[in-house]
């Protein structure tokens, strides 16, 4: 069996609704649940709509554009798997569809991050199986 991946960082467990979310990422599509009852977008994925109570939803495609809402710059190594990345920022991005997600903004040092900074999604194929949705500044 070929073992080409050198990726040592933590990976999401591919189960349940998380598997659905990351499976779309693997196809380089950023999709979020959208309630079939009231049209509300949501993330993190849920079994039912917190707004109208419907169990029905579709995985709707996001335009992948948004802006920086907040971030957490990790100055000391806290997880051994990410020690080489310090300092790094776990950024909260607010998508134009209204949902927010935890991610990274690439090509921007943490001290250059600003609230409202416009960003767009890029897909990082970290292993054969897993693709993480990250963001980069957009003009």
């Amino acid at each position, binding site marked *: 069996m070929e073992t080409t991946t050198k990726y040592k*960082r933590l990976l999401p467990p591919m189960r349940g609704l998380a598997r659905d979310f990351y499976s779309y990422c693997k196809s380089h599509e950023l999709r979020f649940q959208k309630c079939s009852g009231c049209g509300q977008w949501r993330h*993190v994925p849920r079994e039912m709509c917190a707004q109208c109570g419907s169990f029905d939803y579709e995985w709707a495609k996001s335009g992948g554009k948004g802006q920086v809402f907040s*971030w957490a710059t990790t100055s000391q190594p806290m997880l051994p798997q990410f020690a080489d990345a310090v300092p790094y920022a776990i950024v909260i991005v607010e998508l134009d569809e209204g949902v927010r997600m935890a991610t990274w903004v690439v090509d921007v040092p943490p001290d250059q991050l600003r609230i409202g900074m416009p960003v767009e999604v890029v897909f990082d194929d970290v292993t054969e199986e897993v693709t993480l949705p990250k963001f980069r500044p957009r003009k």
Partner: protein
Amino acid sequence: MHPLKDKACIVGVGETPYTRGTDRSQLSQILHATKAALDDAGLKPHDIDGMVLPMPMPTIEHLAANLGIPDLRYSASSNIGGAAPVAAVQTAAMAVALGVARHVLIPVGWNAYSGAGVRGAGRSGPVGLPPSFGLTMSEYYMPFGLAVPAQWFAWLATRYVEQFKVPLEGPASVALAARKHAQLNEKAFMRGRSLTMDDYRNARMIAQPFRLFDCCLETDGACAIIISSAERAKDLKQPPVYISGTAEGHPLPADDIPGRKDFFKIGLYFAAPKAFEMADVNVRDIDFVQIYDCFTHIVLLELEALGCCKSGEAGQFVQNGRIELGGELPFNTHGGLLSEAHLAGLNHLAEATRQLRHQCGERQVKDAEVGVVTGFGDFGDGSLAVLRR
């Protein structure tokens, strides 16, 4: 009038020494603290017939077996992190007021320094996370390298500092006040170690905007309190401290910080008005606050949620000695999680009780009649108790 107002009392408080390094298990720590609380109340282990556990380890069964409780009539647990001890007070108050139990024990033992504390996360991944937000974390945060409290609280604090241009003197005033108060508390782990503004400013960054002294301690020890009905409290050893108001509150969603519509509507924002209304007390009338101080910026958010000042203004509010002993609203007179010890905030309830009994010696808040204790758990669960003598 609220049916639970002043119907239950804190009748006993006790603790072990607060250390870094211990030979005792968490169970042993809890039993020692429980014994101290029973002695304080003038009760025997067999008098305990109810238990509310704010932390899952050890189990209720373990504790009851060790204490030899012949008839444990009520048991419950509150699994909302640092909001749990104060939320447990509400649960215990309901139990004794309704006669479901006579004397309810609330214990917290945590060998966070020697055992599986947050620092354990750096080696082996998050330890003992409640499954609710542990799931969100493992699926959507950990792949991006976020797994410890300093990181997720930094999400809140970064937005807060950026949005309101909070001056460094805000969080610094919180850290310095806590450390100053710890110097007057023989139990405080940081007694004998003073802190200056220069020390604060020059300390290493942990997770921005948190410098070292913005972060709470990891210590070893245990604390316990006992709740009884107001009727029974009258016949016990100590002056009763009445539970006048209690409430808990939760942000929506409580298991995902980024997903919140209003970032600063933390649990305490929902809980505070209910507890003040129940107690029939105005926030301006309280003599001290013991605030859940996991991180200094979170103390600022809590002061705003309590209604002490407007949103975004706590960074100014806390300056110039206002939250120090002798100031308008003394805060964490024992040193808190920042400078006494980390007992998930149960030590805040013990301190508030002693303040209202006027047993605090040189750190006593003069003529203290009413005090407030808050809890803050996990991603924003909140709780508070309004206590009076």
